[in-house]
Structures are given as structure tokens and as C-alpha cells.
């Protein structure tokens, strides 16, 4: 585009520095928060008061803070479930389905092996099996999308989305209207775990916190320091070059989906079987599926860094909880946490433009400018 004597254009930015990455992430989140002020307009309090309600509940109220930590663990597992395939250039939007599969897998263990005093295994062994079964179930569901992508190049977005709907109804079948996992008394939710199978707590926080922090370090090391991580990144950045370089795209596509699905499966274990006060698959399990989309955004905003996603997930966990609290306290309309999800996604896409393009302008040399004819040509 020409503006006066300048040629202005958008050019792709080759490899932005880390500081720039962090700045665009912060800008995206801040912008979403500013935009979300519309949501907090309430007759009950001023705008600042509304923000204070959100943040003080999420980060300074002892009860709220604990809930924030627990939700952050869930969101982080979801973040990694999305992040690993993304590094290979694949979109795992099957987080809800894989989370549901993880929940079903975890509850299948006490269902099959016994959940009362008649259980054959010690509780800690059962808990270990539950985590493993959740990871395996999530990986199996993710693996369907992975193997189809690997063998036949089937679009992974469509397959994972279909699996989300399938698993959603499968959970409904399992826990409602006389389904196998239905609770003894309550209709519409699964049986509750017996107290010995509650996940061990460390200062009120389930042990899954350690798992997720371990996963963060593992992923950063995997992608920064290992040949496997390098291959996955190469496949994501330039599939044609990767294939030419002897990288097997099929095996890697399957692998990233298995790993991603396993993370989402453990997220399902965490949220249904490890958070104090839940310990069952509740009737509103769909809400946890929706929440997992925050994981997509935090993975997208954190870009390459698994550890970098930790503060983002904590912030999102706190915001979504605080917003829900403020909704009740200030009588705001329902769905503030959903709206925030949408706004964050929008500001991410906007920041993505800033991140990957730069505005350049260049003075056009005077010789190149055609002189405007001042006289009529002869004849």
C-alpha cells in the first residue's frame, strides 16, 4: 500500500525474540481483561470494585485460592494435552472427549476391582491404577485421531470434535438412567469414590500438582534438549522438509496424540477423582469439558513454553473461578467465565497478527516516482 512517498506493508516476522513473545502474551491478556470490563458492569458496585471481587476471591481468599490452584492443575493438564500435538502442527481440540474418557477410565478401576472393604488391592495401588487407567483412556481416544492422521491424513480437527460428542453421550449413558456407573441414590451422576480412594493431599492440594509440574519440566526438556522433541518441532514447522530429513511423520503424529490424550486423561482423573468435594462424575460434567478450552488458549498464548504456561493457567484458573464468584456476588448475568474465554481467544488472534507480522515502511526513491505530466502531449 502506498502512503505519500512511503510504501507500507505487512511482512512476516521471521523469529521474534523471547521478550517480544512475552510482551504480546501479556498484551493479549491485558486487552482481554480491559474488554471484559463490559461484563462486570453491575448495579451493585463500581468497575474497580468488580475486579477487586474477582481477584480477591481468586487469589487472596483462602478458600478461593485453594480452588484456583486445583483448577489451575486441571487447566495445565489440558494445556499440555493441546500443546504437544500443536508442536507437531496438529490441533487437538478433543480435550473434552479425552477428559471424559479419563474420568471414565479412572472410575472403571474401583468399579471393576471393588470399592468397598472387599477390594483386593490396597488403596494406594488402586489410586495408582486409576491414574494409569485415566491416562490410558485419554491416550486411546487421542490415539484414534492420531492414527487416522498418521495413516490417512484424516483432518484431526473433525475427528477430535466428533469424538468430543461421542464421549459426551457415552458419559451420559454411563452415569444416567441406570447406566453402569450410576450412583446408588442420586440420579444423573456417578457413584462417589469411597474415602480410602480419595487422592492424597499435600496441604489441601492433590498430588496431581506434582505430576503436572513434573510434566512441565519434562515437556520443556523434551522439546529443548532431545532428538525426539527436535523431530516433533521440525514436523510442525516444515512437514515437507522434515520428511526430506528422514523424519517419520506418521509415527510422530500418532505419538503426539497419544501423549496429548494421556495428559487430558489425567486432567479427567484430577477433576473427577482428586479434587476434594467432588470425587464423582457430576451431572454437569459438560462444564468441565467446556473449561478445557481455556487450555487451548493458554497453550496458544504460551507458544513454546510448557513452564511459561504455568502462570497463564493459574491466571485463567483464578479468573474463571473469580468471575463465577463475582457473578453470584454481584448478580451479573450467567456465563461471565464463558465470555472471558471468548474474549481471550479474540485477543489472542489479534496478538498473533502482531506477533507474526510487522508493519514496515520504506521511502520510495524520487527516481521511481513518475513525474506528473503538466503539459498535454502534442497532437
Amino acid at each position, binding site marked *: 500500500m502506498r502512503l505519500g512517498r512511503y510504501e507500507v506493508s505487512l511482512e512476516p516476522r521471521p523469529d521474534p525474540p523471547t521478550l517480544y513473545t512475552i510482551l504480546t502474551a501479556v498484551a493479549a491478556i491485558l486487552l482481554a481483561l480491559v474488554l471484559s470490563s463490559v461484563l462486570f458492569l453491575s448495579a451493585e458496585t463500581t468497575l474497580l470494585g468488580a475486579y477487586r471481587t474477582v481477584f480477591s476471591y481468586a487469589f487472596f481468599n483462602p478458600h478461593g485460592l485453594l480452588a484456583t490452584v486445583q483448577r489451575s492443575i486441571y487447566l495445565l493438564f489440558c494445556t499440555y494435552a493441546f500443546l504437544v500435538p500443536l508442536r507437531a502442527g496438529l490441533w487437538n481440540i478433543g480435550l473434552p472427549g479425552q477428559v471424559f474418557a479419563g474420568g471414565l477410565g479412572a472410575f472403571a478401576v474401583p468399579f471393576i476391582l471393588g470399592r468397598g472393604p472387599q477390594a483386593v488391592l490396597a488403596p494406594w495401588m488402586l489410586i495408582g491404577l486409576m491414574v494409569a487407567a485415566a491416562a490410558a483412556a485419554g491416550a486411546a481416544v487421542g490415539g484414534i485421531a492420531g492414527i487416522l492422521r498418521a495413516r490417512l491424513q484424516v483432518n484431526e*480437527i473433525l475427528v477430535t470434535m466428533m469424538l468430543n460428542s461421542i464421549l459426551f*453421550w457415552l458419559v451420559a449413558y454411563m452415569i444416567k438412567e441406570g447406566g453402569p456407573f450410576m450412583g446408588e441414590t442420586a440420579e444423573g451422576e456417578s457413584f462417589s469414590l469411597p474415602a480410602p480412594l480419595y487422592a492424597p493431599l499435600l496441604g489441601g492440594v492433590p498430588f496431581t500438582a506434582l505430576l503436572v509440574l513434573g510434566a512441565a519440566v519434562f515437556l520443556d526438556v523434551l522439546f529443548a534438549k532431545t532428538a525426539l522433541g527436535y523431530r516433533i518441532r521440525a514436523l510442525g514447522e516444515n512437514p515437507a522438509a522434515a520428511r526430506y530429513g528422514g523424519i517419520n511423520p506418521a509415527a510422530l503424529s500418532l505419538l503426539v496424540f497419544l501423549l496429548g490424550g494421556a495428559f487430558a486423561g489425567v486432567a479427567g482423573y484430577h477433576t473427577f477423582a482428586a479434587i476434594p468435594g467432588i470425587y464423582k462424575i457430576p451431572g454437569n460434567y459438560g462444564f468441565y469439558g467446556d473449561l478445557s478450552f481455556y487450555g487451548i488458549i493458554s497453550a496458544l498464548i504460551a507458544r513454546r513454553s510448557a513452564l511459561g504456561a504455568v502462570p497463564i493457567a493459574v491466571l485463567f484458573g483464578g479468573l474463571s473461578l473469580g468471575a463465577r464468584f463475582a457473578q453470584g456476588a454481584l448478580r451479573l*448475568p*450467567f456465563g461471565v467465565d464463558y*465470555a472471558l474465554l471468548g474474549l481471550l481467544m479474540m485477543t489472542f*488472534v489479534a496478538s498473533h497478527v502482531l506477533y507474526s507480522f510487522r508493519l514496515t515502511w520504506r521511502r520510495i526513491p524520487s527516481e521511481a516516482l513518475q513525474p506528473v505530466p503538466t503539459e498535454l502531449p502534442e497532437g
Partner: protein
Amino acid sequence: MWELVARSLDASAIFLLAAVGELVNQRAGVLNVGLEGLMLFGGTAAFILTQTTGSFPLGFVGALTIGGLLGGAHGFFSITLRGDQVVSGMGLWILSFGLTTFLGSPYTGPLGLGRIPSVLGLSPFFLLGVALVATTWLVLFRTGLGLAIRSAGENPAAAEASGIPVVAIRYLCVAFGGVLAGLAGATYTLSYNPVWTYNFLMGWGFVSLALVFFSMWNPWILLAGASLFGVMWQLSLSPELVLPGVLSRYVWRAVPFAITIPILVLISTSWFRTRWGLAKPEALGRPYVKG
């Protein structure tokens, strides 16, 4: 029996309207995976407008406008900025999912107005869809504009060289796709099931997207696919009509989605690709950089 068929065709109409729009923008080379989001936004806008004003036409106008605007936004990101079309499409979907939940929730519940008049129990939207299929086929394969659209999706550089304004054509098609997605959403909330609940579509948009792939980018095959899925959808809602007492009703709800996956697999096999693979627009999903 006719009631079931009519109801199925009403469901087909929604798949069809959304998918025809997507087919056109894919033919021009732009992939919009956020179709479901556009439908959610269109449907919610239509519902709110119609309920507050009592006017159906106003609701439809609102849905078409918002669909067109969101389509245009996708166009700006993917055509002008040459961004990743999947990022933008997914962004639109999550944006719409979040915002419509917030905006629509005060209106949760039935529309509370009369039904849109129907002919023998069949709402006009299926007929509209069939007319659109015929028109789309005619325009795409029998007119200069259609040739321009198809060449923008196959080889934009060659198209540009032969004097076709690729950018304008792509914008036109993306906006058209958005308008039809908005219409599909409005058809859902104003005619098929005039009750607003959060995330009321639950996958209809993604099924429509899959239907475009199944159709091999041919409007007539799309019509057949959408009709089939409409019937399947309706049967999954009332399985007792065919197999009473077999399996839980929740399992049946999963069936249309479960069937989609084997079809996706079938059309991705090398046998199918070598036979029919050429139908896919060559430049689909790739931004066009003017040389």
C-alpha cells in the same frame, strides 16, 4: 411417518445451508473451520432480535448480517493478513462459543412466538436449501463468476494473471459462506428448535464442515449427504421408531458423530483419493501471496 420425514428434512436444511456456504468459500480456497461459531452467533442474534422485537424477518436479517461480518473478519485475517486459517477459524469458534453463552443466557427458554408457516409440515428452509444448491451448482459450473471462484481456489496466481481479482473473489465467497452460516443458525433457533440453550448446536457446525469434505465439493452430492444426515440425526433423537428398547437413548445420540468418522476415513483412503481426490481445491487453506 411423513412427520418424521418432514422433521428430518428440516434438520437437513440446517446442515445444507451451512455446508453450501462453506462449500463456496472452500471452492475459492478459504477454509473456515469456525463454521459452528458463525452458526452459534447467527442463531443467538436471530433469537434475541426476534424475541425482543417479535419480528422474524428482523431476526433473519440480524443473523445474516452477523454471519457476513464474522465471515468478513475471517477473510481479513486469512486473505489480507495471510494468517493461518485454522487459527482464525478456531478463534472465531471459541469466541462465539464464549460470547453467545454470555449474551444468550438471559434469553434461555422458548421463543414464545408462533411457528414459521410450513407447507405440509415442511418448513420452507429445506426448499430454500435445494434452490441454493441448484443455484450454486449453476453459478459454479456454468458461469464466468463460477470459473473465477474455482480458479481462485485451484491456482490463484494463474487466476490473477488471467485478470481475475482473486482477493475480491475470496472476500466475496467468505462473506457468502458467513451469511449462509448465520442463516443456518437462525433456521435452528427460529424454526427447527426455537428454544435457546447454551451451546445449542453441540456439533452441528462441525458435521456440516465434514459434509463439505464428503461432498467432494459438489453441491448435489452435498444435498444427498445433508439429507442423509438429517434423517440420521432425527432417528438418533427418537430411536424407538426403528429399534425400540435397543441400547440407551444416550448411545443413539452419539451415532451420527460416530458414523462421520468411518466416512472421513473412507474418503481419505488412497483408493478414494486416486479416484476422486482431484475434486479438492488445490489451494484450499493456503494464503495467496501476490507474486
